[in-house]
């Protein structure tokens, strides 16, 4: 009897503590939240918006997103080393490799990764906006402050759709009321409609900022407090809207048809500071194309087309290099009237590629590396740029140039042309073509290195043939093959022979 009592006592203790010890099979995933968990509380929305900011930054600059890198080479802004990642240079010669986007492989990251990144952000923003519309209330100090969520969500939605409109020829437009499961192939809309959606969202953001004034914005959004107030958010929204309009043309013909007055309206209210992340900063990726262009560790180099532009009197600064340029040859140091050849770049002929010499030297060779914008390359500390005030100013200048504001445009151009490059100033008296040439010169040198897609947008829209994208270059991206397949659509692509154009065969 005693033994039974002992045993029963032991079992009683054992089972009284077994609530957690044994479990059913309805195990929750406690280390990764689901959408219900995330969207259930509006006070989590700032964190979601912060995540979208980081995702946007990573999609455009992050080391893990190699899909953006081909923009750096198709625009001739960069020359790749040994063809790492997607840094394949699109060749200019007949019979060379065809610069056609491979849109027949569902696993290819380019352009699929961009599409997925952007729709990942759009869905989060869509859910946030739907949450607010559905009655979720975000409070600060006990006060309802939904306008902050809305202003930032509208800005980010407009920003992401801006990138979609600039990159892709068509896209699905998802708003806070869209049922994703009801989407069909017929819902694919041309880029112009995507652009309109982007502008609508950006206008909504600007409207809230105008109504609420210079409010203290949510924290943890873009780095270095560049979105920290209502005014800064408004400047960003204006800049993004200006980009959305100015960079949209796929050809110089489309550029000529642009409503520059509309651009002017946004651009004059745009950035007053650079959009930078000061590293180290946990949420901002450090390994970018610029870092790879750095002389110490990089695969990428400054494109020979940029160097030829900057060194018009140097016979060695030839672009494109001749076909028989020796894969093991080097070029001497160039001379340029532009001081930035020595302040922004460094002559590093001995450094070809970390992985060996270029397989095709004449396509990929360049004796110069960039030293500007990448001071974080050694220790992971320093400023990492996404957009610069100069870029914003030059959009404004271009709008002025196209709306008879020559003198103001020249002043803006001269700020860097003379201020940094120590080149001869331009003025209102300078012929229009020359002013345009000077403006784009500044764009290529001053603001097209940090985010390489900017160079791509500039090359396709520039009204001067000599600066245009080369023949057979793609001018926009197709809907990725995987998505086309999902909706029962045929694969299509851009670039290659069908985009051959003798006008741009340099």
């Amino acid at each position, binding site marked *: 009897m005693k033994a039974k009592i002992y*045993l029963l006592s032991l*079992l009683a203790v054992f089972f009284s503590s077994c609530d957690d010890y044994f479990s*059913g099979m309805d195990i929750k995933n406690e280390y990764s939240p689901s959408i219900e968990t995330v969207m259930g509380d509006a006070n989590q929305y700032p964190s979601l918006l*912060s995540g979208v900011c980081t995702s946007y930054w990573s999609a455009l600059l992050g080391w893990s997103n190699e899909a953006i890198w081909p923009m750096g080479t198709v625009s001739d802004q960069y020359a790749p080393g040994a063809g790492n990642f997607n840094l394949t240079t699109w060749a200019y010669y007949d019979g060379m490799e065809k610069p056609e986007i491979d849109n027949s492989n*569902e696993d290819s990251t380019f352009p699929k990764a961009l599409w997925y990144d952007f729709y990942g952000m759009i869905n*989060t923003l869509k859910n946030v906006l739907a949450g607010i519309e559905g009655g979720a209330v975000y409070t600060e100090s006990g006060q309802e402050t939904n306008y902050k969520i809305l202003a930032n969500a509208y800005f980010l939605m407009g920003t992401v759709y801006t990138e979609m409109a600039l990159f892709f020829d068509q896209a699905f437009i998802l708003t806070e009321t869209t049922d*994703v499961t009801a989407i069909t192939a017929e819902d694919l809309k041309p880029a112009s409609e995507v652009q309109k959606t982007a502008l609508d969202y950006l206008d909504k953001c600007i409207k809230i900022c105008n109504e609420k004034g210079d409010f203290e914005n949510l924290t943890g959004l873009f780095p270095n407090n560049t979105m920290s107030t209502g005014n800064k958010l408004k400047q960003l929204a204006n800049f993004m809207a200006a980009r959305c309009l100015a960079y949209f043309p796929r050809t110089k013909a489309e550029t000529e048809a642009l409503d520059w007055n509309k651009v002017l309206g946004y651009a004059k209210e745009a950035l007053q500071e650079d959009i930078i992340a000061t590293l180290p900063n946990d949420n901002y990726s450090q390994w970018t194309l610029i870092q790879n262009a750095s002389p110490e560790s990089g695969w990428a180099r400054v494109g020979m087309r940029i160097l030829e532009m900057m060194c018009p009197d140097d016979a060695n600064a030839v672009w494109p290099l001749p076909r028989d340029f020796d894969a*093991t040859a080097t070029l001497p140091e160039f001379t340029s009237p532009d001081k930035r050849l020595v302040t922004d770049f460094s002559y590093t002929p001995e450094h070809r590629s970390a992985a060996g*010499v270029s397989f095709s030297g004449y396509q990929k060779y360049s004796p110069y590396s960039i030293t500007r914008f990448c001071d974080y390359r050694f220790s992971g500390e320093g400023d990492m740029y996404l957009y610069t005030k100069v870029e914003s100013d030059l959009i404004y200048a271009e709008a002025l140039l196209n709306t008879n504001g020559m003198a103001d445009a020249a002043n803006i151009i001269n700020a860097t042309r003379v201020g940094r490059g120590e080149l001869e100033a331009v003025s209102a008296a300078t012929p229009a073509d020359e002013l345009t040439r000077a403006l784009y010169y500044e764009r290529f040198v001053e603001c097209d290195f940090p985010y390489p897609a900017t160079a791509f947008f500039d090359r396709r829209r520039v009204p001067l043939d000599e600066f245009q994208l080369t023949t057979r270059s793609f001018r926009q991206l197709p809907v990725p093959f995987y998505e086309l397949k999902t909706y029962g659509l045929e694969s299509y692509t851009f670039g290659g022979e069908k985009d051959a154009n003798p006008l741009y065969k340099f």
Partner: protein
Amino acid sequence: MRKNYWLCKTFLLAAIGLCSVATTGYASPDAPSVLGIEQQKTIQVVGTVEDSNGVPLPGVNVTVKGTTNGTITDENGKFRLSVPAGATLSITYIGYASQEVKAKPKMEITMSEDAELLSEVIVTGVARGTSREKLSFNVEKVQKTALKEVTGTTVAATLNGKMPGIKILPTSGDPNSEPIIQLRGALSFASTDQPLIIIDGIVTGGSLKDINMEDVENIEVVKGAAAASFYGAKAAAGVISITTKRGSGLDNGQVDVSFKSELGASWIGFVPERTTAHGHVIDASGNITGTMEADQIWDNKYDMSHDAFDDFFVTRFFHTNTLSLTGRSKSGDINYYASITNTKNPGIVKMLEGVNRTSFRANMDAKLSDKLTLSTSNMYVRSHSDNRSINFDDIYYADPNADFNAVNLDGSPYKVNPNIVSTRNNINPLYTVANTRAEGTSNRFLGAYALRYQPFEWLSLNANYSIDFSHSYSYYLNPKGNLKVDSPDGTNRETGSISTSSSDDFKHNLEVGALFTKKFGDFNTSLKLQYLYEDDKYESVYGAGSKLAVGGMDNISLELADPETLDINSYGQRIVSNSYTAVFQGDYKDTYMFDALVRRDGASVIGDDNMWNTYYRISGAWNIAKTFEIKGIDLLKPRVSYGTAGILPAYGAKYEVYSMSAGSLYGAEQMGNSKLKAALSQELEIGLDVRFLKRFDLALTYSHKRNTDLPYVMAVSGITGFSYQNVNLGEFFVQSYEATLNANLIQKKDMAWDVTLTWDKMHQKVGELGRPNFTSGNMKINSNETYGKVYGTKFATSLDQVATHKDIKPGQSVEDVFTINNYGYVVRKDRIGTTEETHMYVLDENGNNKRGYIGNINPDFNMNMTNTFTWKNLTFYFTMSWQQGGLLFNNTKQYMSFAGRNAKFWDMSDRVWAHRKAYSYTNQHPTASFFEDATFLKMREMALNYRFNKNQLRAVGLDFLRGVKIGIIGRNLFTLTEFSGPDPETRTVEGGVLNGIETPKYPSDIRTVTGTITIDF
């Protein structure tokens, strides 16, 4: 979380029921003894039982055939028994061949060790322990001789080369690493699933390397679903079942103490050949410079009076010591086994400490009453590993004569930048070893507790509970102030980084079951019913930071790191499974065997809509030799089995997941899948077991597996906002042919020679993929095609292969532009003999490099041979393995080639001038150049052991010893192969898939020679 009280209640009721029955058992201490059966007209038999070496065998079962009348031998091998006149005695002892002899008043019986393959008793996946003679499917067992003569360093090493259809593929030679184990091929083209590990009947989740081989009594291997259905949703990749020692075979009152020590050395077996020539300018002082010569030819010899490999790969001492205690109480009611083992294996790299593992085991069976038995198994193992990591590129890229032991400019040892010519500015790996700290400590406890209650002879009830708990902690410190390879003068030093991680894994299982065993006339039947609850919870935290506050290697706190650099994260998972199993096993006159099994299995990691699945097995066999007398054939048993088993999805695969980090929610990442299934493997196994001429056992097995619902990570439509979803798709077929021949070639009193040969061949094929064809590395994964075919670029050897080259201008022919050079490769005519001469690649119709078919990574066949030759007290044993065919991508060679280090491609110093090619020619790397035939012949184990028996020891005054065994053991003594990389057997797991690639890493082809001594007290 929904609380689950029903399970607690069920267990409570079951336990109370057991308790009451158990106490009933206690209340009946006077149950009749098997020895108390009265006999008439009896004779008194007195006898001795010895082994073939004359050593008395205690604990041998001696029974009168056809009765339960019997006894067991005492510690001197003696027995005394009253038997009916003319009776036949049955003599049985585990590990020895059973005998039947006529009873005589005085008997001396010599037992020989049982080397018959088909007499082994199998306990894995069956209702009850069953001889392979009566098994209707294939279960392999490591022969006792192998366990006894060369105790493997690990379970995996022990399995290697012992049976057909098993591949043990090392992914690294690091002493702390574990190999990939593949049983009858892969389960899928998209995953590398490992066998289920069972220890003393308990399904475990931990590392196999924690198991101390000195404790192991048996290892059984179930290779496919046809036999593994008993283990349901976790067993499609097979099962490895380990049984540890318990002292159950000892005589009453016997206590054995044994000490075993093994001490020896390990060294690298093979290093890839490097070029000992370079193409760099030698200055006026005779020193090599970093500048390439104008001719760009690697034909200037290094001064090889110093070899960098010798600085790095060194001979290291290895030891393992075991003290064990085995015993049985005087009443015979308790038997036990306890051991302590310490193993130190530093590996083969200078200064690295490898692993130091100490394990404790205490097993006990206690007969609480005639009907109630308590069994406990306890293991505690503590492993301490040196986790300092080395990038093996640094050794393979290094100048061949680099002096790793040179001093730095600041006088510290191991010059950080020892290379002059190295194109990659690699760091001295010894500097890294000497100036970093990284350790891992792991503590694991495995306890199993079983109550078995046998109220009737035909019924046995059991309740088992087990715990498998492990805690691991590790840290890594790269101190502030370390030199950098690109700043050897110390101008720019490391700012330091640190990381630490800690994890707990707690797994516990509860099993209740009943075994019904009944004989109906000539029908023997067994029915086992089992419920099993499994629960595995894992949690971990990790922190890392950089820019350390202080230098040196004395502090390893995360607090040293700059707070702005801190990265802290945590993770956890819990997997709960429930299963109900019924297995019936029967035979008629030991001639016709039948087996049927059904298992209902549920697991929390499966999608909610498919959480429960049913697995089954049906099998039969017929021992024809019992029906028809066939001269010379004792066993002729065709068998057929069909069964199903599964593989669970990875934890988390079914959930909808938002990614997050450092306080930010990034967005939707993984789309949930409530329909996610366990992968299913269906296997048909047909076999034939034959014993002929009383000394040959042959087992032939054909298996056809169809694996479906394979786990796959599939991209989803971008507009969903998610990136991917875990789904089930595709089918994968494996056909395997296996043969084992066991021969007792010599069976004499003083001499025995046993040979075991195994052979297997496999064909793996992708069925309907359920998605478009794709490539995985160099492999093409195409629907309805053989799996393992690799494709890649090749150098052109005929002009038609470059006919589409873009250098051929309009109006030119291929002959105008290209020619064949003196090595038989196509080159440009205008560049032949210049520094610009380069190979041309085979081109496709568009002028692009063609990725043509190169071969298959799967071997043509595998063979193993185990030999045991015994002469008196001397035993010579070895195991050899032969793999024929199978391509392996020699990535070490490719890495070395990229770095100008590969001898075959780069070294021109011994070639005539016309054959010396320059940098542009040698620095080309088509895929085909690095796929090599991985055929090999390996001497896996070899041992020469001598056992001094009690009589010999008594003669020299050591009568307090039962025996002493001394021996020499060699492991992996040689590898014969044409493969030019470090190990033709190694593989790499990339993206979860085991591919046909070796890669620069800790070499796994390691030679070990040890001396052993075992003293039995």
